[in-house]
């Protein structure tokens, strides 16, 4: 990693904690060249073709992701209802053919509240930590979390209402999520209760799927209503401490989305579909610091931008794999 890339790496971590992205101070000569070239040479034919390509949106990654998410959650349900014992438990903690898996944020809450870590808790947390380091951190959000799927559908409804000019997206300060993370950590340690677990829509939904619905679903419903009529993807964007925990894991993950500057038309459709558009700040005209820029740790690796981009400027990438092959 060169100097500017290192600075961007740190910068993206700060952006995850809630700072607004800034214009880069330094851009590599090669990238600068492309930026300049694009300014002076507009290819109108290519732009037309590009616009046409946009007219037929792809849903490849979205479909793959939805299938994965549904299968993962169904595996929990099936394991219990048909007693096949493949994935026992719920998303907070489970056993995959006997191996303990424990959700990182839930584990953290329990450790802080109980102040004692037994071997199984340690093993399960470690396994999941390694798993999500390999798979990309917030990949958990978009590929596994059941609330994410409901929120995606609620978002569709919200965007429809926005188009009809019936509602507007009320944005909030993203630093709130970091504050919540801290507050819930302190609350767990101070009160000895896993306070967050009581309102975690991920936990509530997972248990409702496996053990049957309960009144707690009302809270999830309230969140969805809030997101539809008031603020787009509010829970995932501004509140969920689980997302931040997995985001921190994603800092060191080799799996990420890679941005390639040369083919990009900078019209920003990727930013429109993104749950965390601040990570795609680099696709704005003149912002990319290099010809290839990895997207930061707050990215959920959902692939919506990959689907949205007809030029292949945004693609899944595993660090080091392209060099190996």
């Amino acid at each position, binding site marked *: 990693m060169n100097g500017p890339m290192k600075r961007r790496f740190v910068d993206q971590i700060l952006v995850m904690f809630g700072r607004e992205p800034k214009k880069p101070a330094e851009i590599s000569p090669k990238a600068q060249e492309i930026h300049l070239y694009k300014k002076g040479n507009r290819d109108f034919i290519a732009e037309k073709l590009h616009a046409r390509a946009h007219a037929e949106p792809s849903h490849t990654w979205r479909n793959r992701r939805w299938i994965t998410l549904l299968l993962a959650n169904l595996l929990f349900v099936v394991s219990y209802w048909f007693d096949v014992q493949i994935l*026992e438990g719920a998303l907070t903690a489970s056993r995959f053919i006997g191996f303990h898996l424990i*959700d990182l944020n839930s584990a953290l809450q329990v450790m802080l509240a109980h102040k004692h870590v037994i071997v199984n*808790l340690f093993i399960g947390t470690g396994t999941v930590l390694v798993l999500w380091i390999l798979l990309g951190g917030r990949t958990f959000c978009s590929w596994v979390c059941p609330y994410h799927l409901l929120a995606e559908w609620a978002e569709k409804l919200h965007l429809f209402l926005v188009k009809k000019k019936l509602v507007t997206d009320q944005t909030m300060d993203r630093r709130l999520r970091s504050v919540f993370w801290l507050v819930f950590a302190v609350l767990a340690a101070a009160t000895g209760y896993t306070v967050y677990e009581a309102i975690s829509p991920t936990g509530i939904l997972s248990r409702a799927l496996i053990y049957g619905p309960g009144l707690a679903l009302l809270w999830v419903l309230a969140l969805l209503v809030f997101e539809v009529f008031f603020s787009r993807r509010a829970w995932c964007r501004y509140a969920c401490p689980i997302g931040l925990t997995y985001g921190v894991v994603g800092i060191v993950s080799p799996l990420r989305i890679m941005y390639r500057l040369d083919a990009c038309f900078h019209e920003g459709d990727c930013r429109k579909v993104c749950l965390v558009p601040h990570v795609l700040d680099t696709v704005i005209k003149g912002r990319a610091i290099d010809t290839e820029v990895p997207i930061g740790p707050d990215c959920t690796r959902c692939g919506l931008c990959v689907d949205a981009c007809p030029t292949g400027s945004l693609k899944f990438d595993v660090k080091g794999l392209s060099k190996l092959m």
Partner: protein
Amino acid sequence: MSESPDNKIAEKPPISRERRQQARRKVLRTILLTGGVMGAALSGFLPLAYAQRSRLRPPGALDEKDFLSSCIKCGQCVQVCPVQAIKLADLVDGFGVGVPYIDARAQACDFSCDAVQCILACPTGALVYHKPEFLSVRSGAQLKAKPILKAKEKDAEPTLNLKERIGVARLTRPEACLAIQGKGFKGQARGAGFKGHMRYMAVDRWKPIRVADHPYDVPECDLCVSECPVKNAISIETVFGPDGRQRKSPVVHEPCVGCGVCEMICPVESAAIEIVPREVWRT
């Protein structure tokens, strides 16, 4: 997103009144969401505060506060229980959302798993065989000896790996007790519609059946004693009533672990014998 007034503004272009107003609204909305989420989180305290009845927890549960702090709410204990005695609490139970409990009258823990499987399943140590050193054991909660499971009495290892009781059975309505009245009992213990299950050694050691499918016919009611899964935990004794007259009565002894089978099987409505959750043995 408030700007510090003097030095920063000099660097940035001045913000229009509209932009400033937008920024102010954003701060307000953020505070609103904060209040909403924190309110929801803390409203969980209320039901806990006015909870009148303490709940029976699964075997091996730590003391209530430690139990609530260590339970990760995954329901693995629910999944391994062969009679589905363990349920997960709902929203109205406050911080108990997703925390396991046993409603003994509806379905008691009859140890038909033979080995307290729920403890084995617990990934966080909210249910434990051995309490960690730094947690104290309330006096009277500790069992004098490992309980002997009647069903395993002939096995090489007849005991349950359980060190503390989860409650103690108590004759809460002696006036209703059939044994005290000297009455017998004939029929389904809890009626035809009762969904509770129990393991009957005479029927099948590994397959619990519905209590409704196992009718009784006893000249003197002793269901709480005959169905108690733990050896020497309860017996019918001859006692002297307050009027000085001799009569029979169920008497609970020290080995009682508080599993709740007596409460479930008691044929009178409502049960004459009940589990007092987290009660300790008093001599």
